[in-house]
């Protein structure tokens, strides 16, 4: 599997994503600078976490209009897999690859902690290494992760199996106490219609090492690599 990681001024988790890809797939990703309008021929593009352009406008709003993201959109339309993590989720949502919007956390504060995620479906190239209902421990680190969409959109996402992950308690049950940012219906990550694009707020790339407390994020990269190799 060939992977490109798109780097904007202000991206800061591109190194963590690159490390996860290299370690789990055995192949180094190509780092693509935001001004490049050409994207190398790859199977997967990752839009990583950070503060693109300082996030001084709405998070991800400026990056969504960069030359490289136009190219990502065009390729995504032809079936290339796209993974947007944290700021990357905000960017690809702003770019229209996914519906809805990421608002300021309900608690109005940045939150960095391990959360529990319930895998909602194993029927996708991103989640095929997991079981539906499996509970993962993965960190979040964001200020704007409060996913919102209107009720009709949320219904449509749920009915078409496009909710990838939800925040949950350790036993998999849902509730306000387990939701770190107030997101609608406890949504942590969603797919596009063809399930070739995934956006999520948590950081699976920071849950790949038992010394650091969790390896639950490995399955995501392993699943993609198996599906695309």
């Amino acid at each position, binding site marked *: 599997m060939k992977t490109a990681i798109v780097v904007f001024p202000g991206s800061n988790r591109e190194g963590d994503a690159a490390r996860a890809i290299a370690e789990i797939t055995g192949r180094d990703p190509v780092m693509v600078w935001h001004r490049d309008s050409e994207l190398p021929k790859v199977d997967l593009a990752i839009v990583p976490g950070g503060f693109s352009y300082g996030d001084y406008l709405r998070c991800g709003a400026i990056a969504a209009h960069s030359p490289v993201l136009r190219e990502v959109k065009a390729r995504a339309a032809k079936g290339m897999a796209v993974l947007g993590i944290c700021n990357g989720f905000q960017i690809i949502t702003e770019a229209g690859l996914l519906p809805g919007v990421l608002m300021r956390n309900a608690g109005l504060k*940045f939150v*960095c902690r391990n959360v529990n995620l319930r895998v909602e479906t194993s029927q996708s190239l991103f989640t095929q290494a997991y079981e539906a209902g499996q509970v993962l421990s993965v960190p979040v680190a964001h200020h704007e992760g409060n996913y919102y969409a209107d009720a009709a959109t949320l219904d449509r996402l749920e009915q078409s199996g496009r909710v990838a992950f939800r925040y949950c308690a350790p036993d998999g049950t849902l509730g306000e106490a387990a939701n770190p940012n107030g997101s609608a219906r406890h949504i942590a990550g969603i797919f596009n219609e063809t399930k070739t694009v995934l956006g999520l707020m948590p950081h699976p790339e920071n849950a790949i090492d038992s010394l*650091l407390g969790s390896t639950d994020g490995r399955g995501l990269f392993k699943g993609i690599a198996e599906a695309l190799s």
Partner: protein
Amino acid sequence: MTGRTKGATAAERPADLMGLTAEEYDRAVAIMGRAPNRTELGIFSVMWSEHCSYKSSKVWLKKLPTAGPRVIQGPGENAGVVDIGDGQAVVFKMESHNHPSFIEPYQGAATGVGGIMRDVFTMGARPIANLNALRFGSPDDAKTPHLVAGVVAGIGGYGNCMGVPTVGGEVNFHPSYNGNILVNAMTVGLADAARIFYSRAAGVGNPVIYVGAKTGRDGIHGATMASAEFSDDSEEKRPTVQVGDPFTEKLLLEACLELMATDAIVAIQDMGAAGLTSSSVEMSSKGGLGIELALDKVPVRESAMTPYEIMLSESQERMLLILKPEARDRARAIFDKWELDFAEIGRLTDSGRLVLTMHGKIAADMPVEPLVSQAPVYDRPIAPTPKQAAIDARSLPATSPVEALRKLIGCPDLASKRWVWEQYDHLIMGNTLQRPGGDAAVIRLGDGPKGLALASDCTPRYCAADPERGGMQAVAENWRNLTAVGALPLAITDNMNFGNPERPEIMGQFAGCIEGMRQACVALDYPVVSGNVSLYNETNGKGILPTPAIGGVGLLEDVARSASLALKQEGDRLVLLGATRGHLGQSLYLREIAGREEGPPPPVDLAAERRHGDFVRGLIREGAVTACHDLSDGGLLVALAEMAMAGRMGATLDAPGDKETPMAGWLFGEDQARYLVALPAERSATILDRAKSAGVPAAVVGRTGGTSLTLPGGEAISVAELSDINEGWLPRYMGAA
């Protein structure tokens, strides 16, 4: 001051000396051979401010040990540099941003973090961890919650955007900080030991390059403001606080590191306190050269800025470089890529003078060397701190140990600071092995196996009661915290926060703390490689507790061989290493339970510290212990409670073997040089034998298991309840604010 020149008369001096004394002004006139103009006077004022010149502290700082076999660079550069083997060096420093953070908590704290990160990457290191030592006023003070919220958000706002994990630090509360909080920020970076960058200018004719953000009118005279006491109108000083832009700093970091990978740079210096003034003067004075700057070429944010404003602005995210002339274009291309300003604003000369021009007109012309070498140095009078009478534990009212534990574990100083550190991205870079909340943070270096242990420490109430002992204890506790995770402590950075040095009792505190620190640093082979002094931490004539914050860095050869405080295994034996005498003077128990801040702080036996610490480190490295925690605030019982909460596992504590020790002293005494370790039962006899032959007092004091903490006499409290109390205070306090 010495060598006093024939002074001008009061009538000849300008009305506003910009913070200089009359004698200092006269000295400036003598150096110039004429009255300085406004720009020149501004330059004297900031260069000779306490903040930049260390004029009151210099004679004392010289006493600290700064060398060692691993020290590559001690104090005097942007940050200290220590060799950690394999061609790697760790670069670190701690710096205060106290006054700005009180006036404007978000921006004050944010720019403090930005400034210290710049100090570290200026030297060629990539910042890999941040820590913060924060001290706020009483929780009952109406301003405190607002300051906590703003400072924490500011630290997070800057550090999170930079992509550098904030992995540790301290948060304490005391009424002495009501009008003057302390925000001490520390950054640790990793560099190639053969590629450290310095600020010493060289090469007559070499271009002087300005990079980074544009210069605005913010922070003018910030260094001078930081060198004066506060009064009730301190809020009016808000315009002297700088405004941070972490996005620009992130670009500046990446651009500088990219440029540093080439051989273009002769010298580099960030523009921190006193901005373009101190950077240009320091670089040229270190190189024994002159420097010419055309101020009209400086990128500015606002039109019609005067030379005075440009030289004194403390706008953030700026750097001054001396480049090899042939590398100009290559360097410019890198800054273009990162969309940052890159302006050639001058050149080095052999005149030995700082010459500033504006549109071809000379704005200032002054000798460089005397600005630094003739800066005033004061050996200020000292009054010793009176010794306090010992506390007799038997004189204290009897309390239920469980009740006392409840109170202690929920008091502002010991309550969990999760509310704070969850606002900091402490996981980015994927190397945070021990997160905030333990004795020391542990971060892996790259893919390992090496790692660093990092901690910041100070017990200001000890320093107030006995500065020498307090200074010694701050260094010893820091050394102990690094040892408790299995690291070899390498070196420290110090952030000396004190009141008005013109008062002899304050200078006495300063001198005492330095003497104690000196003894500890020597005894523990723990040199000071960088630091910062913040004086005049007073409001309306009332000083803060003397607070020499110590930031320490330790090395782990293999991160897999480290220890954490969490209990992990049922049926382990709890072994207390070090002697317990039950010292309650200045203890948290005395303060929180008896309401008394009295008595002498615990004695520090540096030989015992070293012996005990070396023994514990050995045990951790051979994998003999399952958990380890140093004993400090709150003593044995608080330490055990913290281990139980971290591991979500109960334990039983025995009565002291020695019937002479009063129960309160046994449970809550703050005797130094102690560690509590958990280890498998079958190994305890061997370890006790080994401790005995190593000269380390050791005894089995309990065992792990169950869901409650059971005290001598059978009283018990569930670990879940302890955690609720410990985790509850800060969110409740901030939520109610």
